[in-house]
């Protein structure tokens, strides 16, 4: 493009000057050719400008130096003119191109500074190492025209790639991580690319290494400077995240510690009491000679009762441990609500007189996906609670409501209802209501809510306007799979 324009410009100038060749002084004609060179150098590449300088000299010789229309030179002085003209043209080319490059650099630098500023702003809002990594990679691609990887010190001390957790540390990267001095080498995976390795130096500690892979043509002092800025911005963001996590863990640990001491004191009471009773009763039973059969029956019945309570406690603790370890795997299947309510009622029947519970479930309830064993446990717990708090003559109603996205089961009793401040403690582990009378271990509702939430639902409690407590188990639902209808008759 530049060469074509240079040729055209020189040709046009030659044609324009042709009629004036007797009027114009040779020196002025030379000046005009040089002006073309400056113009080309300003707009096009250096090579095009040099080409236009040489072409200008040739055209001047051909059209304006006698004998005209030949490259022969009549007056040897013109040789000096040609030489000076060429040298001046080349110098002009050089100067103009340099100027142009500087202007371009300045624009580019301004762009990079803006981009760095924008990056710093985004990094300040980053909430995770992965997010920092993502921002830095986007910056490298957009502003530096290359690729970037962040490697962060892991717990084991060795750097690990943030993007995919790769831990095969390249030799050079290891060196930079160990000593902190930047390194540069050719990228063995991509031709014509250079790797820039920069330590992520944060105020407190070296956080890792930033690896940039850029096209060789783009690597200059300017880029190196931007890369250093990039590394230090990333390092500061990473350090900030590190301390946020440290602070969060400290709070969590304090809460866990508090919970643990509550659990321990509750457990030591709840386990020791039945154990003490059982030991005592067993010892008493050994002295059978002083006991009559009715007493023996009585004592062994009591042992049975306390063993059952301990077993119940063990179940709940195991449930809690399993739910809290985060390894709970739901065995969700399409289930019938009516069936699971029936199963829960059957399971609590030894403690509850069947006549006390009324179910108001339409026969057309949709199937819902859940883990039947866990949800049955929730319902049993809610029924047990209702009986315990509403007294032996309580009446309990189980209702359901549903819409397109969820189905709720409501267990309502006619007892005294929940205390006013119930929202604060009701679902916390090892909390017992004022009226629980020592039954239960205060784990039930905590477990129930955990189970409901593991399903993507929730467990809520409120007092009914007509009195009594209502517990609502909400489960998410979607359209159940179709059932192929069977041909009637046959």
């Amino acid at each position, binding site marked *: 493009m530049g060469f074509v324009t240079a040729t055209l410009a020189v040709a046009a100038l030659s044609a324009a000057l042709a009629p004036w060749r007797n009027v114009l002084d040779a020196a002025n004609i030379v000046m005009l050719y040089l002006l073309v060179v400056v113009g080309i150098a300003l707009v096009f590449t250096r090579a095009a400008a040099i080409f236009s300088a040489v072409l200008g000299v040739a055209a001047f010789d051909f059209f304006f130096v006698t004998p005209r229309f030949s490259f022969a030179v009549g007056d040897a002085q013109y040789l000096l003119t040609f030489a000076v003209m060429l040298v001046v043209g080349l110098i002009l080319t050089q100067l103009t191109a340099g100027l142009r490059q500087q202007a371009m650099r300045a624009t580019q630098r301004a762009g990079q500074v803006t981009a760095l500023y924008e990056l710093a702003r985004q990094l300040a809002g980053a909430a995770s190492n992965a997010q920092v990594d993502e921002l830095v990679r986007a910056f490298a691609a957009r502003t530096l025209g290359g690729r970037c990887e962040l490697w962060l010190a892991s717990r084991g001390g060795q750097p690990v790639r943030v993007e995919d957790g790769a831990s095969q540390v390249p030799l050079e990267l290891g060196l930079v991580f160990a000593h902190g001095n930047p390194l540069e080498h050719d990228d063995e995976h991509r031709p014509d690319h250079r790797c820039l390795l920069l330590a992520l130096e944060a105020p407190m500690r070296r956080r890792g290494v930033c690896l940039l892979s850029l096209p060789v043509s783009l690597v200059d002092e300017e880029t190196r400077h931007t890369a250093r800025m990039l590394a230090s911005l990333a390092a500061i963001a990473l350090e900030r995240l590190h301390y946020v996590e440290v602070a969060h863990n400290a709070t969590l640990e304090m809460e866990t510690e508090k919970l643990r001491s509550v659990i321990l004191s509750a457990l030591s009471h709840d386990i020791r009491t039945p154990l003490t009773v059982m030991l005592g009763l067993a010892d008493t039973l050994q002295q059978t000679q002083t006991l009559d059969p009715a007493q023996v029956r009585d004592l062994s019945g009591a042992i*049975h009762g306390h*063993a059952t309570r301990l*077993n119940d406690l063990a*179940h709940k603790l*195991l449930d809690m441990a399993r739910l809290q370890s985060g390894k709970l795997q739901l*065995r969700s*299947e*399409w*289930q*019938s609500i*009516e*069936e*699971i*309510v*029936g*199963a829960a*009622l*059957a*399971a609590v029947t030894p403690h509850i007189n*069947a006549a006390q519970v009324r*179910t108001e*479930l339409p*026969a057309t309830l949709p*199937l819902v996906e859940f*883990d*039947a*064993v866990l949800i*049955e446990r929730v319902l049993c717990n809610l029924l047990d609670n209702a009986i315990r708090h509403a007294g032996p003559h309580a009446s309990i109603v189980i209702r359901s409501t549903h819409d397109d996205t969820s189905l709720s089961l409501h267990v309502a009793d006619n007892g005294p209802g929940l205390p006013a401040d119930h929202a604060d403690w009701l679902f916390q582990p090892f909390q017992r209501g004022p009226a629980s009378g020592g039954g239960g271990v205060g784990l039930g509702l905590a477990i129930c809510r955990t189970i409901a939430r593991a399903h993507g639902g929730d467990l809520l409690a409120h007092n009914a306007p007509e009195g009594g407590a209502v517990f609502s188990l909400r489960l998410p639902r979607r359209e*159940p*799979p179709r*059932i192929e209808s*069977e041909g*009637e008759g*046959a």
Partner: protein
Amino acid sequence: MNNDAPILIIDDEPDIRRFVAMSLTAEGWRVQQAATAAEALQCIAQQMPCLALVDLGLPDRDGVELVRELRSWSSLPVLVLSARSEERDKISALDVGADDYLVKPFGVGELLARVRALLRRAAPQEESPQLRFGEIDIDFARRRVLRSGDEVHLTPIEYRLLTAFVAGRDRVLTHRQLLREVWGPSFVNSPHYLRIYVGHLRQKLEADPARPRHFVTETGVGYRFCP
């Protein structure tokens, strides 16, 4: 059934074997004990028991594997004893042919009831073409179901499900077993069919479908039909 055949208790915990043995002996059954799967196979080789109680947590072998092997060459009734953490194993054991299960800890009353039910089922009984439970009369020869004398209309699948339940009466039938038997092997992972049709049977045959007495839910495992 040979009345002298013992009940074999396979469990590695001596005190569990002891109280189970005591309660079974008190009811007049003969009892043999084994602490490991190897010992159990030896006992069986010497004398065929009438029932095996198999703990799933045996020290030398997977209890499910033992049940599978037993089932491969005998129809010996098997009652599985499992801790709650072994829930999946329990279902696997039932799927490979165990007849029933008891979750530890269990009471003696529960144990005796299950043992009686299994032995009753194992005893040869004349194939009766009729069955009566609650208000329901089933006449298998004429494929008719009556409720308090009135005919109940069952669809072909409902009837097939009912006969599957009757054939496995007093036993736990896992979801997989029922789906395979009634709908076919390609349906074993479509439990929603079972939920819907068991619901239909309860609506048609139970006095209170919300609290079934005959088609009992074994949550997470399957169903049990108690005539």
